[in-house]
């Protein structure tokens, strides 16, 4: 029997890792989205949420290190699959087309590498803009020292059309990536069978669409209401 490392680096092991890290990333973005949506809560909700998250201290660092590792594994394997496919078919077809259902070849499945790479580049800018971005200080109830006003940072950022539409575009790509991704993870984690397959695929695309819309609603709403919409309380 192969060693654990060898088994994990086999084609089956790599898909298992892609699926597991994919599910971990989905859990992360669900939590992220719930956090984001506190923007539409009571006036201080978003800043309190951010403050509480940061006050986790070492626990947060640990989670961040884990998250970076998960991103790294997921992207590395994804890109190596894309790289291997060129080696596995050096001579391309003159004509190539899908035979249709039950094939899952779609805009989503065919663009996994592209959407993945765009999101990876996006994350660098995203972290720089919001985690390390400069903003004014504010006060929140129960804390007797000033904290970063991240709510103001988000709102002023998305008043900029370039930021608002770039974020919207990337969040659409997230939906496209997950459209195939959620279903594919279920197959990789061996959680599908022929009877469930269609239902799992449909559920996957619905979840992908909901997550995408959930995220892109925020920049679009802020941009089109000038940050003064009824959903945001000050």
């Amino acid at each position: 029997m192969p060693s654990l490392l060898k088994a994990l680096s086999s084609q089956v092991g790599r898909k298992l890792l892609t699926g597991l890290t994919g599910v971990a990333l989905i859990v992360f973005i669900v939590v992220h989205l719930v956090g984001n949506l506190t923007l539409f809560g009571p006036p201080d909700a978003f800043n309190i949420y951010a403050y509480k998250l940061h006050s986790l201290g070492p626990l947060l660092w640990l989670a961040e290190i884990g998250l970076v590792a998960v991103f790294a594994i997921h992207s590395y394997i994804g890109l190596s699959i894309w790289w291997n496919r060129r080696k596995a078919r050096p001579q391309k077809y003159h004509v190539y087309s899908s035979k249709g259902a039950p094939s899952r070849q779609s805009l989503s499945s065919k663009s996994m590498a592209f959407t993945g790479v765009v999101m990876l580049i996006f994350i660098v800018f995203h972290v720089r803009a919001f985690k390390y971005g400069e903003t004014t200080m504010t006060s929140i109830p129960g804390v007797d020292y000033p904290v970063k006003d991240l709510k103001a940072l988000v709102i002023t950022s998305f008043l900029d059309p370039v930021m608002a539409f770039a974020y919207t575009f990337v969040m659409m790509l997230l939906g496209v990536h997950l459209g195939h991704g959620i279903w594919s993870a279920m197959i990789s984690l061996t959680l599908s069978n022929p009877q469930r397959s269609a239902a799992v695929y449909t559920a996957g695309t619905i979840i992908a669409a909901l997550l995408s819309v959930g995220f892109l609603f925020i920049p679009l709403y802020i941009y089109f209401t000038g940050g003064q919409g009824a959903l945001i309380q000050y």
Partner: protein
Amino acid sequence: MSQMTIHLKIWRQEGPDTKGAFENHTLDTVNEHMSFLEMLDVLNEELILAGNEPFEFDYDCREGICGSCNLVINGRAHGPKRLTAACQLHMRNFKDGDSIVIEPARAAAFPVIKDLVVDRSAFDRIIAAGGYITVRTGSAPEANSIPVELEDSTFSFDYAACIGCGACVAACPNSSASLFTAAKLSHLNRLPQGEPEREKRVVAMVEQMEKEGFGDCSNYGECEAVCPKGISIASIAEMRRNYIKATIAG
């Protein structure tokens, strides 16, 4: 009986190490009842009579059960019709005046031998790595001495239907042989006769598949769509389950 004119663009390649190219031919006497391979026979006959070299293509039974034919027709393995091998594809699926591009299966693990014929011995080596069972040789065993659950025998039969044509590899955007390997595994793994070597088999066959240079599976499902026998990609999930049980979670 209507006659059709068909414009063909066919891959011509002298050998594994030579560069191939497309050749154009037009056939004016295609009968709609011809199979795709019979249409190629007519073309080859015309070429031979004119003193030219015919196109090499693989075939044997012409009944859709041997897995010898594996042409890629207009970019689709075995052509436009589902659950149909190229030999069982009839010209009535095309229209008068159609242009058809015929290519060999393209994968590093399936090198071209000549024209449309590719070397699929990589599949044989995957089978040889573990696609067997250990039985007592000699006189035939008593048929009813090993009880098999109906559900298991049906499952096994579904996957035993794989004819090893290689359409799955040809159609997969990654040139993965996962469907073939998984079908062979699912064929044997649930039967009592296949049980003793189940873990060893899945590890050996997955390793061999990778060694042959087939790509990763990205769950595109194109393999299932082109499979003339309709092998389900559920077998790939089953292969992964068995592999993980045998190695990582075992």
